């Protein structure tokens, strides 16, 4: 007989060791995915407790059910059973950090109102012992009205003890509103329940108290509220309820919170003992250095430099190795299988696409290894504190710095790294401007064009125009990212006001098993979810560049002098034709059909532009032979006028285009995955490409008329 698994939800403040408890309970039996349509992660797993299979959900960390952030809203709605993508739990494990028990119990006091059985799990008892905090569990349990157990989630035997506790404890929902003493709040609460929530909303009955209290303390409401038909009536009822409190001299935003903290005081007064320790903790000592006015930014810059080194240099041998494996496999398949379409599809479409996915893994793994260590130790929040003042000036967040800087290596890991930014709006803006950072795939294109068209004349003694152009392109990318962010901040719907208050967790050693597992998860999610889009697009691109097929006879009759069959094939493919069709559109930018084809094929990855031009110019042999290609570009002339096709203005225009345009299918794929919708990648593609077009147009028109 199959047993319906009981659902257990883990709820708690951020940084309480909730994830450690989750990992310990579920082991490897867990699944991580996003909730549909949003960027909040859903972590669910199974655990055998008392011989019965249970489903365990690790709900997003929350300070309060009176939600201020999207992930808190998910936690709240999941708990009251009104979130369609999550099951209503049968049992709540409230995980609390005993080193700040009062604040942790605030959320617990809200959980007690929900008519769900709650077990209070006092975590971090090891730290508490060091800090000489002692807690009388029985007394605390009596006072709060729920079972209480102390654990240290890192200890295996503690987790076994917790499982036994869950299996044997009699589970019943605690008495709601045990904290509530104020008559005025009770009146206001009753009014909102009776006149608004019961008749006009579909909120589950068990959550009526919580919802009413939330509405009373909340000054402005989110879209959930405004979806109700009689919202006008709701607003007026809530206003009256707030007036009840105001007339009694109470602040509706504060009254409930104060009552809950009074209750918490009553519950903990006899049950806990804490010797006040005024000596500086290790955290205080480390902080006095790493958040120092002078040393702080220096330390942060050094950390960034180390990460750069890792994703630029250390990842390269692995990337070369992956490249080699895919090239060799491709050659092997090409030579082993019978030649034909299927062979080409496998080698140039599927294998090339897979290779294009796997090649990102070393950078993703290195970057996330660093990020999880920095997050795990607690340093990341300090870095955000140090940088926040600089970044808010352009509409970003202190936590935007690491993702943006990673963008210099590659936008893919950078965009994945934005999940360390809690605030949704800051995160989206960071994602949307991140591809302006000059990623390493642009380097070969810049190198080719600069070598061909920018004079190597020395200026100011030590610089050359070539070096300055390179530098200018990098600065241009950064400036455009910051300008775009500042503009988006103005036009962006800010939605509900999100608090910026950020907790700086105490420093601790990262848990290595968690670091490695998280890194592996990130890599796997990329391969699985972005990978399928990348492979699909790369097959489409292969098809466009390979069909319709030309035969040798046709080639022998019609080819230019010295044109290879590959060049002829590409010129007559769909991509080639498309490049020629768009020629009039890109002509004002100084581009001809050859670049047009390159713009299409480089959607696979920007550096493909160089290979495509090699093919078009019928250069045989090594793809990266830019010397030959350089000569060909310089000497290419218009067959009608006999004038050179490419000028400095063309080269500058093309570099500006590459600096700004969204020409990377992998970026599109990862933005789709990270934002969970096609809306953002589409918007990104449109705005970046439009901006690129306009800027290239201006560059070429000014440049060619000088």
């Amino acid at each position, binding site marked *: 007989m199959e047993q319906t698994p009981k659902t257990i939800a883990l709820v708690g403040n951020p940084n309480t060791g909730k994830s450690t408890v989750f990992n310990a309970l579920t082991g490897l039996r867990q699944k991580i995915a996003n909730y549909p349509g949003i960027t909040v992660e859903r972590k669910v797993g199974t655990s055998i407790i008392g011989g019965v299979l249970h489903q365990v959900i690790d709900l997003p960390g929350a*300070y309060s059910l009176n939600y201020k952030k999207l992930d808190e809203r998910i936690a709240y709605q999941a708990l009251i059973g009104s979130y369609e993508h999550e099951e209503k739990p049968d049992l709540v494990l409230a995980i609390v950090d005993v080193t*700040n028990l009062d604040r942790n119990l605030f959320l617990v006091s809200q959980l007690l109102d929900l008519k769900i059985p709650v077990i209070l799990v006092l975590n971090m008892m090891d730290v508490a012992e060091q800090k000489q905090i002692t807690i009388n569990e029985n007394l605390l349990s009596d006072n709060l009205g729920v079972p209480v157990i102390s654990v240290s989630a890192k200890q295996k035997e503690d987790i076994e003890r917790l499982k036994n506790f869950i299996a044997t404890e009699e589970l019943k929902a605690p008495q709601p509103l045990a904290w509530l003493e104020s008559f005025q709040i009770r009146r206001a609460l009753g009014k909102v329940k009776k006149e608004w929530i019961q008749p006009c909303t579909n909120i589950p009955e068990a959550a009526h108290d919580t919802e009413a209290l939330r509405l009373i303390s909340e000054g402005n409401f989110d879209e959930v509220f405004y979806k109700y038909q009689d919202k006008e009536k709701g607003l007026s009822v809530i206003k009256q309820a707030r007036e009840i409190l105001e007339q009694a001299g109470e602040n509706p*935003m504060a009254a409930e919170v104060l009552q809950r*903290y009074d209750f918490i005081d009553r519950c903990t007064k006899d049950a806990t003992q804490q010797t006040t320790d005024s000596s500086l903790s290790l*955290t205080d000592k480390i902080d006095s250095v790493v958040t120092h*006015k002078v040393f702080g930014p220096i330390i942060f810059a050094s950390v960034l430099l180390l990460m750069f080194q890792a994703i630029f240099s250390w990842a390269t041998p692995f990337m070369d190795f992956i490249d080699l494996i895919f090239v060799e496999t491709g050659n092997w398949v090409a030579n082993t299988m019978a030649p034909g379409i299927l062979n080409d599809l496998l080698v140039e479409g599927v294998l090339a696409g897979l290779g294009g996915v796997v090649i990102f893994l070393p950078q993703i793994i290195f970057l996330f290894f660093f990020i999880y260590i920095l997050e795990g130790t607690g340093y990341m929040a300090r870095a955000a*504190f140090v940088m926040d003042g600089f970044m808010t000036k352009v509409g970003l967040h202190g936590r935007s710095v690491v993702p943006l800087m990673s963008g210099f290596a590659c936008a893919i890991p950078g965009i994945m790294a934005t999940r360390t930014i809690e605030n949704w709006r800051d995160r989206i803006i960071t994602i949307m401007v991140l591809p302006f950072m000059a990623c390493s795939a642009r380097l070969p294109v810049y190198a080719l064009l600069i070598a061909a068209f920018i004079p190597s004349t020395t200026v100011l003694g030590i610089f050359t125009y070539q070096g300055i152009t390179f530098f200018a392109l990098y600065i241009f990318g950064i400036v455009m990212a910051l300008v775009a962010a500042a503009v988006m901040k103005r036009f962006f719907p800010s939605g509900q006001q999100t608090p910026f208050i950020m907790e700086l967790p105490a420093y601790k050693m990262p848990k290595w098993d968690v670091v490695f597992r998280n890194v592996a998860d990130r890599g796997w999610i990329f391969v699985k979810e972005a990978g399928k889009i990348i492979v699909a697009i790369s097959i489409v691109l292969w098809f466009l560049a390979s069909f319709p097929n030309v035969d040798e006879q046709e080639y022998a009759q019609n080819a230019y002098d010295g044109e290879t069959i590959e060049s002829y094939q590409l010129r007559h493919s769909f991509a080639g034709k498309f490049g020629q069709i768009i020629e009039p559109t890109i002509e004002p930018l100084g581009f001809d059909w050859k670049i047009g084809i390159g713009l299409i094929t480089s959607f696979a990855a920007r550096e493909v532009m160089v290979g495509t031009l090699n093919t078009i110019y019928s250069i045989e042999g090594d793809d990266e032979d830019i010397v030959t290609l350089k000569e060909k570009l310089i000497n290419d002339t218009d067959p009608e006028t006999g004038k050179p096709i490419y000028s400095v203005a063309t080269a500058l225009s093309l570099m500006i285009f590459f600096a700004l345009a969204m020409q990377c299918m992998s970026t599109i794929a990862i933005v789709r995955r990270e934002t969970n919708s096609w809306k953002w990648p589409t918007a990104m593609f449109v705005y970046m490409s439009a901006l690129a077009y306009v800027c290239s147009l201006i560059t070429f028109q000014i440049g060619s008329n000088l």
Partner: protein
Amino acid sequence: MSTKLSNITKPGKFQIKSIAGAETTRLMEMGILPGSTLEMVRKAPTGFPVEIKVRSSLYTLRKSEADCIELEV
């Protein structure tokens, strides 16, 4: 005498007199209550955010939040 947290420039311990403004609820939910002890630990290199310690936890507040907290001086 009282002053806003955003006006405090030197580190030190203060008693919170009152909380007001748009961020009242969240600040209080975090245990930053009238009567609680608040330690201003340091300011960021650019002046804000400001780092505070309340009930042995550390937080950083931007100026808009620091404006909501009135301290006894």
